[in-house]
Structures are given as C-alpha cells and as structure tokens.
C-alpha cells in the first residue's frame, strides 16, 4: 500500500431494492488512520452503505475495494465471513448485536475465533487441552482483558452480555470489533442512546483507537457533537446521493448540506432535535 492509496475505496455504489433506489452512484474514499463520518438525514442510505460493505447486501452496481497490507480485497465479491477474517472489516450495529447469552469475556474471545482455530489444529488440540491451544487461549484472553480495560468493563467480565446496561453494551460491541484486530472499524451510530457524558467517553475511545491502533474508522452518526468533534473527513448523503464530501469545516458551510438538513423553506417549525443538530452545524 503506497502512501497515497486510501484504505477503502467505494466506487459508483448503487443499491436498488425493487423500485426503491436506496443508494444512487455514491463514490467516496476513507483514509487509513483517519476517522471518516457518513452523515445525512433519516433514510439517506447510510446504514445501507454499511450493509454493502459488510456483506449483508450484494450491491446492484459498484466496487468496494479494501486496500489491505496483504493485498486488495473486493468486498462485494468475497464470502461473508472472510470480510472479517481476511479483509479485517469489523462492524458494530445501531441496534446492538452482542451474543447475549455469552459472558462479556467470551464475546471478546469469540472475536478471535480464527486465531484460536489455527492454534487448535481444527479442534483436536483444543479438545485434548494441548499446550499450543492453551497458550493461544491465554493470549486471546489477554487481548480481551486489554480491551475490557480500555472500555472500562473489567469488573463485568463474567456477566452475561445481555444483562449489561445499554451504554456498556455499546462499548462492549466496540471492544469486540477491535478484538478481531481489524484494518477498518465501521461504527453504525455508536452514540445513539448515549447521554452527553457517555458520548464524550466514546469520542475519547474512538480517538484512542485511531491514534494508538492506527486503523481507519468509518462512522455513521446522527450526533453532531461526535461527528464534528472527531471526524477528519465527512461524507454527506441525502436520498441515496452524495451531496457533499470534505473536512468538517467545509461540510458545515456547504449550502447543499444546510438545505438537506433544513429544507428549502424557512426554519421555523423544526423538530427540536433537528434544530439542535443545526446549531451544532453552525
């Protein structure tokens, strides 16, 4: 990977569901070691982009290239589990998807499945409790503990994940995504449902991941304090089209963005949360 290549290249991505054009010819790039945010009003197609990236949807048209140190991966072509295993794309969900009946620690160890499978020699070494497997498992637990410490969940390591409070579940999901040792971390509304204090902690965590672990982050977010506070680059979608692309400052002043958030008319009868977002934008 040369210095100029972006980490992720999305080219002419189009996703059609029957008669609905959810994404219409969207192209953007996400740089390595940078936080790229995708924003837009409800129904703009942000989550659909994520679902295409992580193999949940097969794009109608388009190319999704991940430039990995090991080589390029075309994400729309490879089998679902290899997107995480080989390309190293990790993802979290807006409506959290943990393994609720596993412990917190087990959720994190599971994310290192492929490392452990290699060490367990396809299960036999694991079943016999051989040293290679025990060592690998000890290392997996060590990495899990490291992330538990980072997201402040060490105390709850043995809880069933489903019993954690909401904010903790969100942080655990990020920790789990980091345990697959990704090249890019995709976060779908990580601040949704968090209070201002929790969302400030989240910002710090994301910056820490960018700076210390040096991976790219791709972020779909509604919360403008998160987006404006930490993003290096912002892509704005509206009705499935890209309407702006640039640094937070550029996007903030872009008339097309203001129009998309406000509508063409005057801004009298705005719902309160839109008004708040708008204030943040300005």
């Amino acid at each position: 990977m040369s210095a100029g290549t972006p980490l992720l290249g999305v080219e002419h991505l189009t996703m059609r569901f029957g008669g609905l054009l959810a994404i219409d010819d969207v192209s953007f790039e996400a740089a390595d070691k940078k936080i790229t945010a995708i924003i837009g009003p409800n129904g703009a197609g942000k989550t659909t982009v994520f679902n295409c990236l992580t193999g949940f949807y097969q794009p109608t048209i388009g190319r999704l290239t991940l430039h990995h140190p090991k080589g390029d991966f075309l994400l729309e072509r490879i089998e679902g589990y290899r997107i995480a295993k080989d390309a190293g794309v990790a993802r979290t969900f807006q409506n959290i998807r943990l393994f609720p009946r596993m412990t917190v620690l087990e959720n994190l160890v599971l994310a290192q499945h492929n490392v452990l499978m290699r060490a367990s020699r396809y299960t036999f070494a694991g079943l016999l409790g051989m040293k290679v497997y025990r060592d690998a498992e000890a290392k997996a637990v060590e990495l899990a503990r490291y992330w538990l410490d980072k997201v402040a969940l060490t105390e709850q390591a043995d809880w069933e994940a489903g019993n954690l409070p909401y904010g903790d579940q969100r942080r655990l999901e990020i920790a789990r995504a980091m345990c697959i040792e990704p090249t890019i971390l995709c976060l779908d509304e990580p601040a949704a449902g968090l209070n201002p204090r929790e969302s400030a902690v989240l910002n710090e965590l994301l910056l820490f991941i960018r700076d210390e672990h040096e991976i790219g982050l791709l972020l779909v977010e509604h919360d403008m304090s998160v987006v404006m506070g930490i993003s290096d680059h912002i892509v704005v979608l509206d009705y499935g089209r890209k309407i702006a692309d640039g640094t937070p400052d550029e996007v903030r002043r872009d008339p097309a963005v203001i129009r998309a958030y406000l509508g063409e008319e005057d801004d009298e009868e705005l719902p309160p949360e839109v008004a708040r977002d708008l204030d943040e934008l300005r």
Partner: protein
Amino acid sequence: MEYFTQQLINGLTLGAIYGMIAIGYTMVYGIIGMINFAHGEIFMIGAFISIIAFLLLGTLGVTWVPLALLIVLLVAMVLTPIYGWALERVAYRPLRGSPRLAALITAIGMSIFLQNYVQLLQGARVKPLQPVISGGFEFMRTENFSVVLSYLQILIIVLTVILMAVFTLLINRTSMGRAQRACEQDLGMASLVGVNVDRTISFTFVVGATLASFAGLVFLLNYGVIDFYIGFLAGIKAFTAAVLGGIGSLPGAMLGGILIGLIEAFWSAYFTVEYKDVAAYSILVLVLIFRPTGLLGKPDIEKV
C-alpha cells in the same frame, strides 16, 4: 422395590439411547431452526454400520470382545458422521434461507430416502446379532425375583457418561464449540466476527451424527436385532425427548431422553406394555401445555 430398581436400570439404559439421539435434534434446531427429521435415519445407519463391522470382524477372527467393541465403536463413529455431513451438504445447504416448510419437507424426504437406501442395500428382513456381552451382577435376591445389572448396561452407562463429558468439553472449551454457540445466538453476527458459518453448521451435523452412531451401536448391543425401520420410532421418541427437555437446550435433551426412557420403562412395568408410547407422548402433551418451552428451555424474549 426389587422390581422398581430393575426398571430404573432398564429405563436409564433406554434413556441414554434417546438422549444421545435427542442432542442431534436439539443442536441442529438451535443453529438453523430446523427439525432434522432424517436424524433418526442417521441413528439407524449407525446401527447398520456397527452390525456390518461386527460381522466383518467375526469373519476376520477378531473375537476378543473389548478389542472388537473398540474397533466397531471407532468405525461407526467415523463412518456415520460422513452421512450426517453429506445430508447437510446435499439436502439442506442449498435450501439455506428458504422458507422453513421447504427445509422441513426436505428433511422428511431425506428420511424416506435413507430408509429406502438401507432397505435396498441390506434387505428388509431384521438383522440379528448374537449377544456380544452377556452376564451381569445379580443383587437384591428374593425367592422369586432378583435385580440384574448386566455388564452391557454398565458399559452403556459408563460410555454415555464419558461421551457426554467429551461433548460438553467440546462445546464449552474449544473455539469450535464457542463458534457453535455463537451461531446459535446470531448467525449473521457470527459471520461478521469471522466465523465460517457453513463450516460450523457442518460441524454441528457431524457431532450430532457421531452421538447418534453411538446410540445406534448401543441399540444394536442392547436389543440384538435391527432393521431399516428402527430410525423412525427412535427418532420420533428422541425428538419428543428434545422437546420435553426444551428444544435448543443441550442438557435438556439428555434430561428429556432419560425421562422418556424412565417413563416407558415404568409404564410398561406397572401398567401395560402396549400403551407405553401413549404414556410418553401424554407427558409431552402435558409439558407443552403447562411449560411450552420444555423443562430446561429458555423462552425466546424479543427485545423491541
């Protein structure tokens, strides 16, 4: 009291067989939400592979019982899972994501296919095997009755306990087992953390078939006669056991199997043999009315 003890022993042996088959049902249901009705046939194939292996060993002159048993056990537990694996690969995987009804009908179709396959290859007549292990302990003697705990029953119970321990270790301690449990909870998410879901599902079928083949061998040793149709009734009973214990729950499957075995044994002892199946199924109906999730099953809570 003597009579009760005897029936307890018989019921436990029978229950071990049902429980071993029930685990296969419950695992497959847990992971892909489908009742694999051909699982009873996998059990039957396990019994057939065992009898063929015994007869071959007999002609080869391996007559030392422990060695013969060990070889047959290994042969059955290696060959039967190939059927389990092929069943999933050929019949179920192409239907992944199709409506449940399609998968269910395919399972019934595969069940009929496998019955006929064995009937064609092996004939419809019952296949006898002379007792491999005979004798046992007699205790609690009175004038007209004594309790017999046969060596075979001891062997069955010991082997069942060992196999269950290995199985529990496999599911709880290895990374494959962890992946298996993850897939039960959320297939899509498991794939997103890099778990090869197809391979994990194959693994589930292979493990289920291994346990079923053991049950087949035990059935053969215990009853001495098998035919191509034994999988049907045993399969339905084991399915009942899985539902009774709570479908999707592994300890539940074993518990359900043992309960069904005991109910049958006691009912035929104290009431009528003819109605033992009615008794087993009636208990199932009662459990489903008052505890629809089964004894150890957890209710499906949908978060909104």
